[in-house]
């Protein structure tokens, strides 16, 4: 549109730059903190420029951790987080795509009921039914195990919805053409629907990976064995004791390491991420 208002353009960029500063600044501080030695936090104000201890702090956290603060080496926790995030994402995708397929492409008694049961999962964040869920998991002997970390989080209404929404947009004619072409339900699923869902699956994977990665309360409860700690919960442990012995440098190194993987995923797969997010939630 023809528009000639330089002031407005200036204002626009000003707003954006301020926004970026607000968003970036806390992390900048964290990064700076992670490059200093412990003594630098005793002087009344956080350092604002990088210090010389970056490599040292990071490698210390990665390789040794602070077991006296309940934090095993970060490399172990990062690995656990990775396993958890990936398996949650994959698991959610598998069970959701199957159930969405059933709901959209079949009509059967109790279809609506099944739909509602799945939908209810959306309503009950783990925080509100924390104690009984914990009990179920412990009765099933799944504390301190990957299945315990993963399976209870794997039922996802969100993913089911995304697939349902997507399936609803697949033209009816495609399925009709396939049926006329002699494909049965599983053949149609495998030959047509699954390949068509590729980008949705990828986009969803990004979102669900992040979902799995940022879990905090759940791992906090179901792991009592430090071999299964995830990085996000481990960090909280570290931070809780940070004050009595100021080791913000280590805490922030851990914070940076815990943020890095999911943030990288968001930045590198921005297109998929946005697609996944905006479509899942709609």
């Amino acid at each position, binding site marked *: 549109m023809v528009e000639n208002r330089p002031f407005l353009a200036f204002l626009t960029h000003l707003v954006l730059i301020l926004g970026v500063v607000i968003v970036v600044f806390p992390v900048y501080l964290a990064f700076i903190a992670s490059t200093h030695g412990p003594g630098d936090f*005793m002087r009344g104000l956080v350092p604002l420029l990088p210090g010389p201890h970056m490599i040292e702090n990071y490698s210390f956290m990665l390789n040794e951790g602070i077991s*006296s603060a309940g934090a095993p080496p970060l490399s172990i926790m990062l690995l656990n987080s990775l396993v958890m995030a990936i398996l949650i994402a994959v698991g959610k995708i598998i069970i959701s795509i199957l159930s969405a397929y059933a709901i959209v492409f079949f009509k059967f008694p109790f279809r609506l009921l099944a739909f509602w049961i799945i939908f209810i999962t959306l309503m009950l964040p783990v925080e509100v039914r924390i104690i009984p869920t914990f009990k179920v998991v*412990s009765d099933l002997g799944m504390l301190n195990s990957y299945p315990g970390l993963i399976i209870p989080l794997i039922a996802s209404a969100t993913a089911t919805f995304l697939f349902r929404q997507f399936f609803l947009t697949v033209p009816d004619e495609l399925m009709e053409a396939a049926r006329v072409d002699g494909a049965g339900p599983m053949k149609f699923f495998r030959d047509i629907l699954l390949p068509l869902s590729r980008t949705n699956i990828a986009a969803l994977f990004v979102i669900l990976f992040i979902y799995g990665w940022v879990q905090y309360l759940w791992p906090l409860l179901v792991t*009592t064995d430090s071999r299964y700690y995830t990085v996000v919960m481990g960090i909280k442990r570290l931070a*809780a*004791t940070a004050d*009595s*012995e100021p080791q913000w440098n280590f805490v922030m190194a851990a914070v940076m390491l815990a943020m890095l993987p999911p943030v990288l995923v968001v930045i590198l797969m921005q297109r998929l991420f946005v697609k996944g997010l905006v479509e899942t939630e709609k």
Partner: protein
Amino acid sequence: QTEIAWWHAMDAELGKKLEEIAQGFNDSQTEYKIVPTYKGTYPETLTAAIAAFRANEQPAIVQVFEVGTGTMMAAKGAVYPVYQLMADNGEPWDPSGFLAPVTGYYSDTDGNILSMPFNSSTPIMYYNKDVFEKAGLDPNTPPKTWAELETMSRTIMESGAASCGFTSGWITWVQTENLSAIHDQPYGTLENGFGGLGTEFTFNGPVQVKHWDNLKKWADDGLFQYGGPGGGADAPPKFYAQECAIYMNSSASRAGVIANAKDFEVGFAPLPYYDDVTTDPKNSIIGGATLWTLNGKDPAVYKGVAQFYTYLSQPEVQAAWHQATGYLPITNAAYELGQSQDYYGQNPGSDIAIQQITRGTPTANSKGVRFGNLTQARAVVDEEFEAMLAGSKTAQEALDTAVERGNQILRDFEAANQ
């Protein structure tokens, strides 16, 4: 090798030392392996253990702070009493070797000691000698009374030597429970809860109100800086960073203080008292934790636990732990070992805690406090203290509500454990 899980709440310097002890035991034999795991703060460790017990994932040993004692004692089915454990496994066990305040606190009404004493403490006062000097005070004369503490704090602030007079960990334990004991004020009925479940809180007496009032006033003046609820995580850095000249906390904070107070000299002193209330301050009360053995494990595990406890009770182990951390030497033998090594001579102030906890004859009010659900009741006290600091309540109101809410918690405990 049988693994024995030990959940504890020792972070930082204390945690390192604790791991050394476990390592020491593991190296001393080959059959058992103690696996220590840090589970967060004391309240967190306690609740984690309880939750784990319900989930049948409990550790064999859990370190429970003194506040949890009432709760643990009431949970008969969950606990394997230490006297029984030692007897069952044929380990030597002589309760009389432990310090009296310790055994007294952890024994049931029949005099059987239920948990393994490990890290008992009592609060003391730390102060920054350099700041004292800068403010023109005598670095070797710490304040004895609250009145002195107030004046000195003012001098320090006005001289600009530090921006705050004092801070404190554990408002509940240090500034309320110990305050009550030192001034011989009851904290609750039935001998501060030792007498049974039907007890009620009474810590809203005039002395406690007066002290809280003062704390509020001092906080407003900047003399006192609040370090946060529970253990008061913000307090130590204020002292380390020389923001506050005086710091009250557990004797076990000594390890952290020594590790972090690199640029100044630290002095140690008993807690202050109000000389208009008493001229004969009573003993301070016990804190820290003991090790509780939880039911539901293999006999082999308990055998290992019993051996570990025997190892722990050795004077050398105890003395080393005491000296490194600031916890009390819980056996007489360990204390004597320290004396024979002239540890206290070489480390002035390191015996302040022992002297303070053993001074005078304990009264019903200075035996300690032992209530069910005291963790929750303490959370209430913290909240009310904060409410007072924020100015939404007077000290009297805050303490009255705390007592009222605390009593409700006691009734809940009573109802659930009858």
